[in-house]
């Protein structure tokens, strides 16, 4: 069912479960390194392979990072809590139980504010807990790359035991047709919070940030929420948005036909933007949770928690507010910079000496256009904030005008060197040799006697045509402002 029609008939309720791999030096319960991309099964030991007799020892840095995440998300930090075993058999989980947290999470009841379409939406956080990642299975042969139908499977345990923080929202009603945007904005904001805290590299494509999207629909005006589906394999911000939209459309079609939604796990397909059915959750798997007897309870000291809170870095939303005030830009411009991922770049350009308005102008204008053409994120353009700052400096000193500056940027992006290199190589200096400029002016005045007379008689507005003539004659290299001054001087009206 088309999205608009779906929204006319049904109201969506969202829920998001996000897993963040922490960037700790070592794994959650052993000393193995967490580095990504090592040859398979080289970062393993008796503990993370679950050899008989091995025991876990909790990583203190991971506990600290989780508490900091909880604090940044305005959560209450548990005074006492425990790890729990989540029991189920799967070959990529060496112990056949996952050490996780069940009814005693480290952090509870927080929120994260996100801005969508100029409106602030408060996303309530139910819990933030700490657990360990599983190994990674690769299913070889078969059509789907999934376990069913595969010829054989191989497992890499390098990832097994990497600390994983799970952040679960409360159900999010009331987003209406903005549901896809809200979901995306939430994951974007969460990612920025993680970056600001320095707890994870949050790379969705490497799986260090993974998102499960829960969607249910209820008929407009109903008060009882519908059955939800849980979509996994959502590996980019864009996919988060598309998965929500796709699920709303799919569920609406089923409900409109009088069908019912099955509670199940669904897999998102990047290529089609659609989801397909995974494991049914109707017969709920019984994980037989119980408190992990191999680990001591955690009882974070209150003073320590308070000091962690005091030492939190400036959070992204606060920072955006501050920069907006410092730069004096409108909500709309700020939102545009945020959406374009330009805030860090503008800030760095300002730090390199550029006026905020100029920095914003170049990044959101010429450079955004170039990035768009190249199909790349802004940050991946081959130009540094310092180089952009240098271009703005050349413009404000009069050495370049905007037209030449665009050519300089083009040169830098083409790998011709620094802005100064490009200026030198392409001979892009504004003409500021007064002798040369005066000669051009004399020539233009002689060729445009009528206009010159008008100016002499006080019609200063007519000078525009003369300046245009100078610019044309100099092929754009003249400093237009200086040319105007000299023309008025020569005609005795300055």
């Amino acid at each position, binding site marked *: 069912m088309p999205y608009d029609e779906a929204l006319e008939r049904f109201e969506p309720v969202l829920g998001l479960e996000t897993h963040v791999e922490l960037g700790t030096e070592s794994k959650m319960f052993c000393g193995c390194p967490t580095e990504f991309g090592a040859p398979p099964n080289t970062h393993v030991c008796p503990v993370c392979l679950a050899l008989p*007799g091995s025991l876990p*020892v909790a990583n203190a840095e991971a506990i600290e990072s989780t508490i900091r995440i909880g604090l940044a998300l305005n959560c209450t930090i548990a005074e006492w809590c425990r790890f729990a075993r989540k029991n189920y058999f799967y070959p990529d989980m060496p112990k*056949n139980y996952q050490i996780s947290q069940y009814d005693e999470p480290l952090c509870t009841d927080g929120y994260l504010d996100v801005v969508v379409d100029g409106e602030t939406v408060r996303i309530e956080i139910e819990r933030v807990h700490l657990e360990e990642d599983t190994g990674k299975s690769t299913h070889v042969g078969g059509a789907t790359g999934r376990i069913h139908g595969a010829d054989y499977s191989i497992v890499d345990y390098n990832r097994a035991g990497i600390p994983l923080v799970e952040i679960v929202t409360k159900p999010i009603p009331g987003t209406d047709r903005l549901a896809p945007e809200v979901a995306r904005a939430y994951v974007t904001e969460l990612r920025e919070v993680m970056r600001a805290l320095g707890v994870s590299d949050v790379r969705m494509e490497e799986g260090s940030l993974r998102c499960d999207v829960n969607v249910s629909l209820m008929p407009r005006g109903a008060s009882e929420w519908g059955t939800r589906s849980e979509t996994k394999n959502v590996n980019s911000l864009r996919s988060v948005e598309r998965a929500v939209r796709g699920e709303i459309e799919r569920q609406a079609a089923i409900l409109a036909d009088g069908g019912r939604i099955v509670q199940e796990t669904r897999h998102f397909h990047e290529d089609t933007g659609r989801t397909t059915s995974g494991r049914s959750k109707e017969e709920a798997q019984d994980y037989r949770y119980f408190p992990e007897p191999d680990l001591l309870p955690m009882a974070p000291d209150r003073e320590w928690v308070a000091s962690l809170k005091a030492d939190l870095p400036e959070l992204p939303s606060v920072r955006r507010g501050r920069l907006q005030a410092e730069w004096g830009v409108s909500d709309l411009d700020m939102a545009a910079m945020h959406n374009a991922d330009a805030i860090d770049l503008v800030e760095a350009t300002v730090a390199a000496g550029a006026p905020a308005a100029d920095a914003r102008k170049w990044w959101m204008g010429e450079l955004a256009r170039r990035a768009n053409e190249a199909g790349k994120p802004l940050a991946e353009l081959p130009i540094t904030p310092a180089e952009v700052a240098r271009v703005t400096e050349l413009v404000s000193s009069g050495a370049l005008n905007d037209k030449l500056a665009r050519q300089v940027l083009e040169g830098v992006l083409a790998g011709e060197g620094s802005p100064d290199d490009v200026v030198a190589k392409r001979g892009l200096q504004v003409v500021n040799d007064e002798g040369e400029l005066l000669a051009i002016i004399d020539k233009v005045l002689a060729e445009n006697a009528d206009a010159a007379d008008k100016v002499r008689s006080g019609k200063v507005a007519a000078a525009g045509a003369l300046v245009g003539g100078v610019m044309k004659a100099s092929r754009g290299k003249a400093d237009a402002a200086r040319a105007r001054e000299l023309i008025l001087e020569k005609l005795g009206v300055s």
Partner: protein
Amino acid sequence: MTELLHKTAAELGRLIAAREVSAVEVTQAHLDRIAEVEPKVNAFLHVDPETTLAQARAVDERIAGGERLGPLAGVPVAHKDVFTTTDMPTTAGSKILEGWRPPYDATVTSRLREAGLVILGKTNLDEFAMGSSTENSAYGPTRNPWDLSRIPGGSSGGSSAAVAAYEAPLSTGTDTGGSIRQPAAVTGIVGMKPTYGGSSRYGLIAFASSLDTPGPFARNVLDAALLHEAFSGHDVMDSTSIHAHVPPVVEAARQADIAGLRVGVVKEFGGEGYQPGVLARFHEAVELLESLGAKVVEVSCPSFGYALPAYYLIAPSECSSNLARFDAMRYGLRVGDDGTRSAEEVMSMTRAAGFGPEVKRRIMLGTYALSSGYYDAYYGQAQKVRTLISRDFDAAFHQVDVLVSPTTPTTAFPIGERADDPMAMYLADLCTIPTNLAGNAAISVPCGLADEDGLPVGLQIMAPVLGDDRCYRVGAAVEKALEDRWGGSLLTKAPALEGLGYQHG
């Protein structure tokens, strides 16, 4: 060489340190004894004389090189096959781990090595330490040296039998519900369950994580204390290990003075289900304590009656999760992997073939007890009982310094007698389980022979958490008084293992 077999571990350590006898000679004497009696006793799952003698030679060289090692350097020890060892297979008595060679040493193993002890081999046990008779071993039962038709206790039955049969002066065990104290009691030797967390579980193949405790066996109290001290103490690899010094167990074993000590007799242990000969020896032991200057009172621990059912929910629950890792994927047995079956099928077939009936019974019990909808009624309730038992102990230790009881309600029962009756088997641990649930310390020391069958009876001495030294102090006092009465250790009354060319001196 046989006179070396009769020496205490402390004496052997002294002689080796003084270079009056070499570790190799002592080790060879025990290897010879093992070769002689093993066909009857079956205490060991793995003996490798070459590896063992190489360890002994290395100790002799270190001593010759002037290195000062611990008091047990060069003394042989039999090691329960539930601790990982890099130089010997580790099976936990299960087919599912047959032939598994661990790539790492348990902390207890590495501490034995550091202290210069010589590991004679790996001893038999009930599969995954689940049982009270060693009949649940996948590799055949161990026999009690006092009567080869009877069980040596369990689960550490190989370790108790090896020491009682003079195959080793010392051995290691693990105690989850009585698996050290009960085998010690029925074979007439000393067995100690330290405070939970006092000895490391790292490398101990888990049965029930919140209960498993490594501890020593010996033929006398001082030797047990020396071994206890050698492998105990904080370990960073075990999060549940206690950050405290090992209690002064060796000093306490030497002190053996109990004048003024307050002793509580647990009212709830005794009466129906207890063998009269066991109760008779126990009451004599209590009188003996009084005669040695202790003040004896009766103490009630009303929750102890719920210990057995609580234990049989908690231990199977933990085991059902701990044993999930035996799935044929990374190590151990693999059944049915012929290229046509799924991973789930191979896991299922391997577990069906690799685990014995008692292990399966407990996995099923535990899986059920943890199931959603049953958790509160079973596991949750059992945890509450556990708290009540700890409170009973706390209240009791306000009144008295130690508690005493028979270690086990009966003497060693015949092999096969309870094999088909799990409930009867579980009753063997009636008196020992409360201590596991509360995590405190307890020892079993021999206190005579039951009149009915002439088999050994054990006295259990229970002390508070980290009060391990009290167990040794009282145990040593009882041992000294009884040996004076008997004219030697209780084991001198054991029948010779006939036809095996060995006679008691």
